[in-house]
């Protein structure tokens, strides 16, 4: 059955053309993504192996049952191997994940009869691989993906809702930001096993020498005007380009860093990427006067040379030639090594409506082809245990995903150097818009942000973003609920 449906899609597309169907009838071409295979596998073997039109109608019918059929029942019937994909980047994440999986397989996994078999796929091409696997119905049982794509997979039924898998006490212990990120259309689809956050790293001594106030919480963040003066003060003090914004992260196929790192600018000004009341429009939101004003200020900084648009690594801040670095939690380690006690983290500036930071990171979901979601969940629950959380956050330097781990973390707990990240996450962080349109949003906004820093007209760039988001929504019928 697996095979017929997919070529069926292609053949049906051809058939539609040949038959010249009317434009608004024709619900008959079945989407490869909405592969009903998982459901039928749950329900029993090969029940929908009929002709295309029947299969096509089953998509909706199956869709509505997917959530129930593939949910957790709290039991793992027999020994099972969970196939998992994990993105492999640089650094020690992969080493640690390998160890954690080995520990799981040897410990709780062995007790439950669950073995996790992981495949590390290169970070740089991970999204493309996952998307094509989603398109062809070849996803593994468990996979992690960067936050932005969750809603797309959830909408397309590539993932199952996991509410039934997560015990209440575990759910209550998750940071609210983790729950917010994992929720789509009222159901929980994923759990992040670590959080993220933004801040400005600074050299305490440089700030003090220049009589610059050091904020300690998002509530007393620098105002945008104050920040403007600070940048100019530092430039006058001899720093050619005082602010590093990791411009170089933006290279490559996606500009996600620009969206993650700088949508807080417009959000802090009272604007947003899209109207979150119904996710049906971005016009007047992303290109609102507030957004334009905030980004014009940012553009001014770039124009006046206050922003470093030349660096291609982290050395300028580490070597002290650039005193401020606007970036995420992940550079705490290298920065701390370079600056020691002189390092301080302050919240992003307030552009009018309070300081805002990004949140969310890689998170794990259960694919709709997973036969034993309980087994997958057992693995995730292991990753969420205090011990594993602390192990991860102390090695990787990422904020933990659970409240108990955050409280007992040396770095992120009360009095820790990075306590501010947890503070932000519970008070002033904004999740990425929970819509399948997010990949389109980030592609568009990220490019616009880069263009703005390079001198493009802010209003027309943001108008274009609004327009492109609109186009994406229209192209997908505004992402109607399919369940």
């Amino acid at each position, binding site marked *: 059955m697996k095979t017929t449906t997919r070529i069926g899609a292609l053949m049906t597309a051809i058939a539609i053309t040949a038959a010249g169907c009317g*434009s608004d009838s024709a*619900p008959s071409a079945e989407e490869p993504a909405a592969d009903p295979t998982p459901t039928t596998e749950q329900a029993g073997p090969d029940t929908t192996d009929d002709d295309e039109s029947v299969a096509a109608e089953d998509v909706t019918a199956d869709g509505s049952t997917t959530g129930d059929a593939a949910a957790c029942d709290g039991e793992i019937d027999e020994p099972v191997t969970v196939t998992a994909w994990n993105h492999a980047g640089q650094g020690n994440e992969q080493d640690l994940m390998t160890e954690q999986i080995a520990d799981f397989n040897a410990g709780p996994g062995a007790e439950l009869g669950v073995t996790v078999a992981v495949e590390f796929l290169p970070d740089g091409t991970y999204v493309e691989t996952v998307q094509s696997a989603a398109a062809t119905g070849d996803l593994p049982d468990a996979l992690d993906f960067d936050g932005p794509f969750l809603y797309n997979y959830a909408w397309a039924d590539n993932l199952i809702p996991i509410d039934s898998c997560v015990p209440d006490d575990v759910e209550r212990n998750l940071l609210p930001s983790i729950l917010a990120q994992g929720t789509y259309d009222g159901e929980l689809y994923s759990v992040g096993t670590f959080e993220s956050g933004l801040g400005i790293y600074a050299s305490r001594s440089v700030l003090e020498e220049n009589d610059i106030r050091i904020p300690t919480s998002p509530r007393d963040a620098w105002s945008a005007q104050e920040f403007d003066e600070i940048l100019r003060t530092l430039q006058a003090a001899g720093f050619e380009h005082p602010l590093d914004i990791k411009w170089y992260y933006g290279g490559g196929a996606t500009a996600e860093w620009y969206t993650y790192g700088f949508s807080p600018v417009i959000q802090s000004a009272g604007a947003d990427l899209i109207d979150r009341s119904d996710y049906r429009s971005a016009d007047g939101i992303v290109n609102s006067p507030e957004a334009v004003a905030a980004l014009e200020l940012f553009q001014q900084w770039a124009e006046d040379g206050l922003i470093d648009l030349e660096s291609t690594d982290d050395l300028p801040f580490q070597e002290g030639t650039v005193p401020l670095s606007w970036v995420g939690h992940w550079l705490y380690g290298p920065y701390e090594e370079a600056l020691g006690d002189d390092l301080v983290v302050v919240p992003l500036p307030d552009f009018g409506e309070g300081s805002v930071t990004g949140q969310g990171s890689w998170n794990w979901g259960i694919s709709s082809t997973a036969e034993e979601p309980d087994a997958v969940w057992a693995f995730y629950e292991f990753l969420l245990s205090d011990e594993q959380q602390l192990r991860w956050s102390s090695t990787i330097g990422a904020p933990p995903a659970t409240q108990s781990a955050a409280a007992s973390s040396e770095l992120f707990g009360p009095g820790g150097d990075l306590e501010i990240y947890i503070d932000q996450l519970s008070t002033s962080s904004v999740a990425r818009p929970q819509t399948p349109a997010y990949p389109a949003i980030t592609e568009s906004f990220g490019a616009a942000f880069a263009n703005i820093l390079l001198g493009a007209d802010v209003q027309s760039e943001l108008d274009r973003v609004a327009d492109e988001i609109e186009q994406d929504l229209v192209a997908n019928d505004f992402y109607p609920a399919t369940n």
Partner: protein
Amino acid sequence: MTATPIQPGIAPAQPTPRRAGRRGRRSDGRAASGFLAPGGLLLGLFVVGPFIAAIVLSLTNWRLVSPLPTQWVGLENYRAIIADSQFWIAIRNNLTFAVLVVPLQTILALAMAVLVNRPVRGRVVIRTIYFLPVVTVMTAAAVIWRLLLTPDGAVNSVLGTITFGALEPNWLTSTTAAMPAVVLVSIWQGAGFQMVILLAALQGVPSDLYEAASIDGATRWQTFRHITVPGIRNALIFVVTVTTILAFRLYDQVVVLPTPAGGPRDATRTMMLEMVQTGFGRQLIGRASAIAVLFFVIVLALTALQRALFRESP
């Protein structure tokens, strides 16, 4: 995939087999079908078939990962693409790139070929060195060049020295310098390939012509202009045609080199990038397929035009 020179180009002309007639009138139908079968089957399955599928898909609103039903939308995708200013920017960039790269790369390749065609010591080594960039995988080459093109990189060191610091652009983020940067890297990688083709042609120019020119007291330039260039005319046309097609396939360099992909303010957005971003990024396979079809039509037309303008000498 990669826009390396191994990518095919339309080789010139389809000369009729001049001597075929002599072999007699009988048809080699059976043998021919045997010879053509393996290639024909594979081409049908993996090139023609998928391309027809792409044409069909271009008339639908098919999305890569989506629960929505696919619909027949007629020419809507084509209308949307033609109405999209980014597509025209991409075409303009492709044309700019071609206009820059084709002559520059051909001239450089010709210079290389002429230089190593002289009876000097070490020319085989030099020839090999000229060809080395060609055998460097483009994704790898782009990584190296990213390093060289940073504001403090090697390229600016050289430029800065030559121009006394007057010209040190931020290659990868400047709207005016990004395309030249892509051109530079493409030329670096492609020139060696064309050099070999031109070198082969140079060696085919009869040496008695040069001797005659020398006796007539022709200058180097006159010799080059009136003997060398006409002598390698066909090879030059071949090189120009191939390079033109490659120029329109430009993709790898623009993804890896400038910030962001597509370049500062779309300075290096190309048709290929537009197609891949539409298909994989926005998951609009129908629309991406329409871009592919338009691409095919445009490049086919341009190649035909080019061939009409520069016909080979017999």
